[in-house]
């Protein structure tokens, strides 16, 4: 807790950003986000959009796994549901962007309920296994149905928003980032209320939570539905960004990517979801850079994919064993150091 932050009303004490320093950081971050697109190259804009989509999805997974304690390996499958919904609506119906994104979220949420209802009545582990099954079934459906374009998938035209055609990373940035920020705010708000508290209670001690009045199945489904909704919207953004959606676009390894993101970032913390998603998105890019710099770089690029897979796994194991509270905790330690300096002994 920050020292020297006096509150005079309870409402002030419950605010999301309550101290002067936090507000300054927030203003800085907002400034960076606003100015960045004007100063960045296409490559960095592309990365920023990708990071933003990943942050949105990781935030959703964090609600389920970090805060409610239920492991899901279906994040990619639900993103796929959202992406396909958006693609189909854009191609066949031509509905507006915002509606499509919401529809993507809802379809993914429905998928989540279908998976969650049988598996959440028992131990949380069964949800994990059911989500793996869901990934396979989703892949099967995407690849074998003419409605979803079969194995070839679907190609979208650029999105249209407020009269503009979103065909550059610069333009897409101004849709993707605000949507992500809204999703982050929503999640942060959630944990100021009884809904969020109930999620944490289920994670920490679900039997006691029930005796205190929390209907377990209902809240677990709520958490799962919400995280699927987030995945669906992130998937929709993904579809608008990449404009090609195939059954191979959302493999199980992508779900593992998001799991790694929240573990590395720090489960159960908003900052953790952000840090983790940023970190994990950068890892493949850094690997690419690193390999290019090595002497026989060109021949080694074929190893990028398996090395990436291994690195994801090692990050999960490494962080869980050595730094279970993730980068967010590392950040907190750094902050504490600076708070106490020069009194550190």
């Amino acid at each position, binding site marked *: 807790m920050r020292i020297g932050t006096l509150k005079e009303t309870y409402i002030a004490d419950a605010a999301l950003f309550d101290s002067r320093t936090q507000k300054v950081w927030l203003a800085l971050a907002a400034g960076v986000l606003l100015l960045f697109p004007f100063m960045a190259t296409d490559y960095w804009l592309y990365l920023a959009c990708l990071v933003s989509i990943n942050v949105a999805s990781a935030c959703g997974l964090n609600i389920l*796994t970090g805060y409610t*304690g*239920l*492991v899901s*390996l279906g994040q990619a499958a639900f993103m796929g549901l959202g992406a396909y919904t958006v693609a189909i609506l854009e191609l066949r119906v031509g509905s507006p962007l915002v509606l499509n994104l919401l529809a993507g979220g809802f379809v993914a949420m429905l998928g989540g309920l279908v998976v969650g209802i*049988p*598996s959440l*009545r*028992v131990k*949380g*582990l*069964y949800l*994990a*296994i*059911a989500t*793996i*099954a869901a990934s*396979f*079934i989703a892949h*099967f459906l995407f690849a*074998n149905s003419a409605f979803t374009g079969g194995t070839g998938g679907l190609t979208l035209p650029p999105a249209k928003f407020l009269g503009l055609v979103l065909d550059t990373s610069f333009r897409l940035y101004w849709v993707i980032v605000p949507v992500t920020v809204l999703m982050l705010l929503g999640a942060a708000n959630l944990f100021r209320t009884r809904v969020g508290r109930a999620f944490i209670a289920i994670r920490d001690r679900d*039997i*006691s939570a029930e*005796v205190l009045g929390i209907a377990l199945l209902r809240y677990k489904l709520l958490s799962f539905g919400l995280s699927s909704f987030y995945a669906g919207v992130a998937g929709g953004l993904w579809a608008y960004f990449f404009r090609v959606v195939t059954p191979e676009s959302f493999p199980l*390894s992508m779900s*593992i990517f998001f*799991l*790694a993101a929240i*573990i590395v970032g720090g489960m159960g913390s908003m900052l953790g979801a952000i840090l983790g998603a940023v970190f994990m998105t950068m890892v493949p890019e850094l690997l690419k850079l690193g390999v290019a710099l090595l002497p026989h770089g060109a021949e080694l690029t074929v*190893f990028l*994919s*398996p*090395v*990436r*897979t*291994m*690195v*994801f*796994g*090692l*990050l*999960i*194991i490494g962080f*869980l*064993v050595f730094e*279970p509270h993730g980068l967010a905790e590392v950040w907190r330690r750094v902050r504490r150091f600076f708070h106490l300096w020069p009194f550190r002994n």
Partner: protein
Amino acid sequence: MDWAYLFEISLTGIASGGLYALAALAFVMVYKATKVVNIAIGEMLMIGAYLFFTCAVTFALPLWLALPASLLAAGALGALIERTMIRPLLGEPPISVFMVMVGLSSVLVGLVELIWTADQRRLPELVPNTPIMVGEAFLAPKVFYGALTASVLIAVVLLVFRFWRGGVALRATASDPAAAYSMGINVPRVFSLAWVASAMIAAVSGIIVGSIGGISSSMGVFGLSVLVVVIVGGLDSVLGALVGGLMIGLIEALAGAYLGGEYKLLVTFIVLVMVLMIRPYGLFGTHEIERL
């Protein structure tokens, strides 16, 4: 209704069910001893097969040397996993270890792809090629011998579990490590042993499965069917692993024959969903009553 065909398919199904049972046994062993849900069981199968490949093909060792060498290597890997990933997380909530296992599966797949690429490889011939005939029904020799080996191994493990005091120690440690400690049982050693044995059994499974269908970096998908088997049978039940294995083997074979190969996994997962709705703790699993 072509009964002969049905019989033939069922035979193959039961035989492959025996393989599932063996792999499920490896899973149940680790769950019974350390309460860990080893979602990387398919990948451990795969690594066992690749270790055998390395010994038998890359190092061109004679089979009587390659088999034990690869099993020992697999056992060593199991001990390494237990020491570096499981033991540090004792006392942490089970989902942490579960996620570590997810990470492990990723590491193993990446490792295999790195060293051997994603291409499929063939294992050397282990069994004679003469087809096995049961009446009019044809059974592929590899499947038959594989199932035979699996059955023998399962029987050995069951006997060991039952009569060796190590088996009792295993069960004691699983239900209450602290009490087991105070009884003089070397709990860390029991944990290690369970993982070593599990890895070796998984390796045998992997070698058999690899001999039948070749080895590749996507062999881990076999593990998903194994997961369904243990859920159907009960996570901590050896009997469940056997019965569940045979059931799933049969169902998959029938689905593959009558619906088409790509429906196999789909049907398996439908079975999973049905079991979760009707009997979530499986046929023989124990429903733990938690104390408040």
